[in-house]
């Protein structure tokens, strides 16, 4: 087989695999909605507000319920020192109702 044929075959296979990724994603999304894969009812009843991504600090565990100044509340002139604080931004300023 010529090198160009090998290259074109590789490209065709690669493009086919990438074209199949949305199908796989759709299948997995449908599977996650099946009753056996849904979160337990006890959890949905809790009306949770945040993803459990980071547990080291309260303002990164529950960013939606924290203030912009929450990372600096340890003492006057305190600086944010949690590593995840550099990745998870504070919430945007809330509209005053």
């Amino acid at each position, binding site marked *: 087989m010529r090198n160009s044929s090998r*290259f074109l075959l590789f490209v065709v296979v*690669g493009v086919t695999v*990438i074209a199949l990724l949305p199908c796989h*994603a759709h299948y997995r999304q449908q599977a996650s909605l099946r009753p056996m894969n849904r979160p*337990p009812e006890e*959890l949905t009843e809790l009306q949770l507000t945040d993803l459990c991504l980071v*547990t080291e600090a309260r303002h990164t565990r529950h*960013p939606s*319920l924290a*203030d912009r100044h929450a990372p600096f509340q340890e003492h006057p002139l305190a600086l944010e020192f949690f590593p995840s604080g550099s990745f998870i931004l504070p919430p945007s300023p809330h509209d005053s109702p």
Partner: protein
Amino acid sequence: MIRTGERQRNILEFALSSLHRRRGRNLSLLAMYVLIIFVLASLLFFVSALKREAALVLHDAPDLIVQRMIAGRQELIPVEYGAEIASIRGVAEVRSRLWGYYFDSWNGANYTVIAHNSPTGTEGGAAIGSGVARSRKVKVGEMFPLRTPGTEPLLLEVKTIFPDSSDLRAADLIIISTADFSRLFNFPVGKVTDLAVTVTNVRELPTVAAKIASLHPDSRPILKSEIQRTYQSIFDWRGGMTLLILLSAVLSFIIFAWDRATGLSAEERKEIGILKSIGWETSDVLLLKFWEGCAISLPAFLLGVILAYGHVFFLSAPLFSQALKGWSILYPRFQLVPVVDISQLLVLFFLTVIPYTTATIIPSWRTATIDPDAAMRS
């Protein structure tokens, strides 16, 4: 048509053999290119999947949460506030929520403790996240103690462990009864952590929030839309994590493409000069360079995207999880549900493959338009 196709294949064949002659350099180029695409595509997949998870979690969130602020800190809110808020027109229900954090001095982990009088949250029982079960090494039916402000620890029996698939919601959760919650934290009577408000008409939410703020100026109403906005900003491209990785990858790519665009090696110039002297047209040389660029950038894009998909959705993004973990002792083991946004992949294609291919053609065009003799001697 067939002749054109055959000509293109012959030039591609020549381009591949030309790349093969400098295989050490070109393989290292390909590896670096794959790495950059891999990082960018992993970030796209990771952020899209987390956005979907956040949207699912927030679907169940209360319409409005009312906190109380004193001296810039969140404080416990009196239950009477709930009764007064319930009397506002348009409010359907006000639920008092009791929740807080427990620092486990035994292993340094932080847990989120929630009071909920469900069948498993009976007195002395607890429903826990799988992260808590792992860090405390407990199974269903076993007992585990939690330190209280008094002398007696609170002994809880594990009634339920939430499955690993719920880790993104509940890895650090401990759900106990209201009585146990009060004992655990010596919680003051008549106070709650915050209030969850449900309204009859969501369009009235800003009005209800304004009424609550005027009724209790020390209160802080948080709308569901604000929570959604917070998560949009976290996973936005300008968000801390996204921006950091995006900038590093884009800068690497710019350096990489710049290296190609600034000029050809003496060997490459000599090769172009020889091709021109044996009768190749400038357009043929440009076509050759186009195929050389494609032979590097197309496989790099295909491999980078496919590897990124596997990294995020089959291996749970170990590269990013290390960054997110920080000092957390307890970290969720999550298997993200795949989300593929074709438009984002197309943008990635046009921002990486096209600039690289162009950067390969431009210096070759400059060399191909000069005299072959000068090109060979330069």
